[in-house]
């Protein structure tokens, strides 16, 4: 049986698929989030060194991981859109950007809240903090470039080029920041994840899954809006029940 792999690369078919998937991912996100909160607050033991404040980790770490992953996924979609001229890939890239920026911001914000009780400062020029901040700048650049070009096709392609240049630059920035930091003040605070309690690992994993499901649900919802906006002149959009009513 021949499977049409490209069936869902058309915005018209993907629109329906995304609509069916969103409730599942949103529901899973709520469930994982509730379970993660339960494990994180009630089951995971108090940390020997950091006391109760370490529990910020359960949102901080997933947000950091996602902010970096989403940038790569976004750049991948953008590259697909640039190379194969698939409209949906470019739409996915622009749908992912705000979520990625949000996670980068959450990561910085919770990092500051965690840093205050632990390090005694809201902000230190640690390599990880700095590279996360630069990542946020890269997201903002992508969004700003996309927003300032009126023609959506040109906006997609220009932003895609920027995302690709950014993703090539990310490792360079990351290592330069790391060397910059270690050259001057040495390592500030490091913790190894290997000695982590099992309940903490469970809570962290659950929260990570919750964040993944949230990111997917939100990106799909956003891409549906983008599809409607871009394809509003087409017939299939006019025939949609939610558009006609």
């Amino acid at each position, binding site marked *: 049986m021949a499977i049409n792999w490209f069936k869902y690369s058309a915005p018209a078919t993907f629109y329906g698929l995304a609509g069916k998937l969103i409730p599942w991912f949103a529901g899973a996100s709520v469930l994982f989030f509730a379970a993660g909160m339960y494990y994180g607050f009630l089951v995971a033991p108090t940390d020997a060194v950091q006391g109760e404040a370490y529990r910020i980790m359960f949102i901080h770490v997933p947000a950091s991981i996602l902010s970096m992953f989403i940038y790569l996924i976004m750049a991948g979609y953008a590259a697909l859109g640039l190379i194969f001229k698939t409209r949906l890939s470019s739409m996915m890239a622009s749908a992912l950007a705000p979520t990625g920026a949000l996670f980068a911001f959450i990561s910085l914000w919770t990092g500051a809240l965690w840093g205050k009780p632990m390090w005694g400062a809201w902000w230190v020029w640690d390599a990880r903090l700095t590279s996360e901040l*630069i990542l946020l*700048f*890269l997201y*903002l*650049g992508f969004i*700003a*470039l996309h927003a*300032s*070009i009126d023609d959506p096709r*040109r906006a997609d*392609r*220009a932003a895609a*080029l*920027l995302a690709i*240049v*950014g993703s*090539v*630059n990310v490792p*360079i*920035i990351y290592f*330069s*920041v790391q*060397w*910059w930091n270690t*050259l*001057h003040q040495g390592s500030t605070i490091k913790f190894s994840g290997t000695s982590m309690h099992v309940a903490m690992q469970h809570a962290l994993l659950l929260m990570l899954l919750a964040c993944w499901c949230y990111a997917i649900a939100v990106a799909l919802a956003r891409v549906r809006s983008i599809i409607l906006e871009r394809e509003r002149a087409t017939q299939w959009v006019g025939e949609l029940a939610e558009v006609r009513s």
Partner: protein
Amino acid sequence: MKKLSLFALLLLVIRRDLLLAMRRRADVLTTLVFFVMVVSLFPLGVGPEPDMLRKMAPGVVWVAALLASMLSLTRLFAADHADGTLEQMLLAPQSLSVLVLGKMIAHWMVSGLPLVLMSPVLGLQFDMSAQGLGILMIGLLLGTPVLSMLGAVGAALTLGLRGGGVLVSLLVLPLCIPVLIFGAGAVEAVNSGLSAGANLALMGAIAVLALVFTPWVAAQALRISME
């Protein structure tokens, strides 16, 4: 028509852009004056203690160079875009990447090289050591072309957009962070008795990488912007 070799083409573009820049000397001077002013404002802002100034001099000079190179970026393609020359360049049978590389080099000679030559004077204002001044100049010599090349990508992407000047800084500045780190780091390494070799070598590596990739990327960006 005589077929141009790539190198002759490169020289032609550089000569043309330099000639145009020399006809509008005010633009060139603006960048340089801006650079000198920004650097001179720092002691007024943070106080005249020589110890502190000596410590922050490389960073200040580098940040000012970064900002000054942003200033002239919007002009890189704007005039050619306005009078239609850019469209002819896109249609030309020669490689667009080489044309763009020529424009990058000319831009660096107009806006980057004066900063390099001016930096020792500014360094003296901050009481930098002779050795530090030398390393600062070498670092700027390697790093300012990277700023021009990365900046050209940003300028090509934002060509003809409203608010292009601010946008290009937003796009390019984060990408320039490694240059800033290694450039200022080289001087600080010398000041603390270490060798600046590692920082300068990394800077050279970035310059070579940028030289290979950015003309092509900027050419693609121009094609996207002009279609």
